[in-house]
């Protein structure tokens, strides 16, 4: 665990900012075990982005830039990551937990013979006795986990580690020559991005989530003016996504996105365990629900009992006035 390789992620030609808290994790772990860390960037035409990663105290920033890496495929990518880890002498690999790394990292772990900790939220202790914490049972339990293999792989929960700090010094950029080993077993067909002018759920300072209480697409659209004013991301419960009102990547919860914004509005949603698992670390939580017994009120800082169809326009108006818009 003394030489940690962090995988930085790109999305549509840019560094995915939400993948960077893994750098903070690696810096902390390196400090606690007396080691060092480097950052790896895989892709096609990504070399120009390396400069954005050199200021965080990494020893090296490795760039693997080849046409084969234009699209992700689990098998070939796992081979490439492990090949780079070997070249770099890395004994641990870490990345922020999202659908990219959840797909990739277990394969990397199997290939390295490493134990993997999913959704790591904290590092406990130091030196040879270092351990890790991770949520289980939809966040109802916090487990302390010990890695029993000489090498380790970490999925890092992005909301539990800050964005990395600039350290002043610059890391060396290394172009690593790792071939894309296409085994022909899988092929990429297409990607249909969720088109939205709003900020990404994991990056927004304000998130407004709606639930089944908003009834249908027209009801759900009542969140839009509020989101526009607050530059907020919109989230949803599984019920809303299942009903086809929202794309799946807006689902907040145990099996969707995990968010921890400064301000979270929960509107017309009950606060099922599975939903709360994805938002309970938000700084301030506001719940609007017509049922005063709804479980969401037990995690909300401010609860307003009432009809969302009546409250939303009033609240939107009040915020408009407050902002002088």
């Amino acid at each position: 665990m003394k030489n940690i390789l962090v995988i930085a992620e790109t999305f549509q030609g840019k560094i995915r900012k939400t993948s960077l808290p893994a750098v903070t994790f690696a810096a902390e772990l390196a400090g606690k075990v007396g080691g060092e860390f480097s950052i790896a960037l895989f892709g096609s035409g990504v070399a120009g982005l390396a400069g954005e990663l050199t200021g965080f105290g990494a020893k090296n920033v490795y760039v693997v830039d080849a046409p084969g890496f234009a699209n992700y495929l689990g098998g070939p990518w796992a081979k490439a990551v492990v090949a780079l880890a070997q070249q770099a002498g890395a004994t641990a690999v870490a990345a922020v937990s999202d659908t990219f790394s959840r797909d990739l990292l277990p394969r990397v772990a199997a290939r390295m013979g490493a134990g993997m900790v999913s959704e790591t939220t904290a590092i406990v202790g130091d030196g040879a006795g270092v351990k890790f914490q991770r949520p289980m049972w939809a966040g109802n339990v916090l487990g302390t986990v010990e890695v029993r293999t000489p090498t380790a792989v970490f999925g890092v929960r992005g909301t539990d580690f800050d964005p990395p700090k600039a350290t002043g010094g610059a890391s060396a950029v290394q172009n690593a020559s790792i071939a894309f080993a296409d085994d022909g077993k899988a092929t990429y067909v297409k990607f249909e991005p969720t088109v939205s002018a709003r900020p990404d759920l994991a990056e927004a300072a304000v998130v407004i989530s709606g639930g089944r209480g908003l009834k249908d697409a027209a009801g759900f659209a009542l969140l839009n003016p509020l989101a526009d004013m607050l530059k907020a991301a919109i989230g949803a419960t599984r019920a809303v996504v299942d009903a086809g009102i929202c794309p799946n990547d807006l689902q907040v919860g145990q099996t969707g996105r995990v968010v921890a914004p400064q301000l979270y509005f929960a509107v017309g949603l009950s606060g099922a365990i599975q939903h709360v698992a994805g938002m309970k670390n938000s700084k301030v939580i506001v719940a609007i629900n017509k049922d005063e017994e709804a479980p969401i009120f037990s995690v909300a800082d401010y609860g307003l009992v009432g009809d969302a169809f009546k409250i939303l326009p009033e609240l939107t108006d009040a915020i408009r006035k407050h902002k002088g818009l």
Partner: protein
Amino acid sequence: MKILVTAKRVTDPDAKIRVKADGTGIETAGLEYKLNPFCENAIEAAVQLQEKQGGEVVAVTIGDDDAVQNLRTALAMGADRGIHVKLPDAQMDSDLAARILVKLFEQEKPDLFLLGKQAVDGDSNQVGQLVAEYLDLPQACFASKLEVAGDKLTVDRELDGGMETIQVGLPAVVTADLRLNTPRLPTLPNVLKAKRKPVQELTIDALGVDPALTVATIAYEAPPARKGGIKVKTVEELMDKLVNEAKAL
């Protein structure tokens, strides 16, 4: 087509889980157990494929003696036979589960291995990917749509930021997301029929699997509770709190 599919036993997904006072595990008294919801999606997908094009569906569970109940649910949903590898949850991590499943895959030689994307007790989201790497098979994780054409499978995958489509050659490993399908409820006649379907019992010794864990959960605790908040009566009061107390606007 021969399909291998998982049927993991988990604590009721909607139960409020409490940690034992001594931190050695969770309080299990009075808890109900269910089939892992993602396994339900995997089983439903397997049975639908079988209904379309024939073949065999073999369901597998790794767990203590009671896990056979959940395996029977898989049989009642339409799986043809079951395999129960007896091993208590407490002696397992995702890697050990994966290495056991690898052995079963090698024995059964299915065309397709369908798993859930995540077990809702451990929330690890690792096993399918581990199995795929150990067997050097292609994987399609977080599947929300499956289409078979010949020896190829086209899969829609639910990703952060959008929907991806990939094609994998068979044999392949697929992990199911919740929107893959709506799992059927077993009918009473099928529950009765399931009682007579064959279930093979195995141990990890018989399979020749090393019981060593790569990661071990050594302590359990309740997460810090959120401080209780207050109820406000009006939008004005809410605005006042958000602006002046929380300074959130």
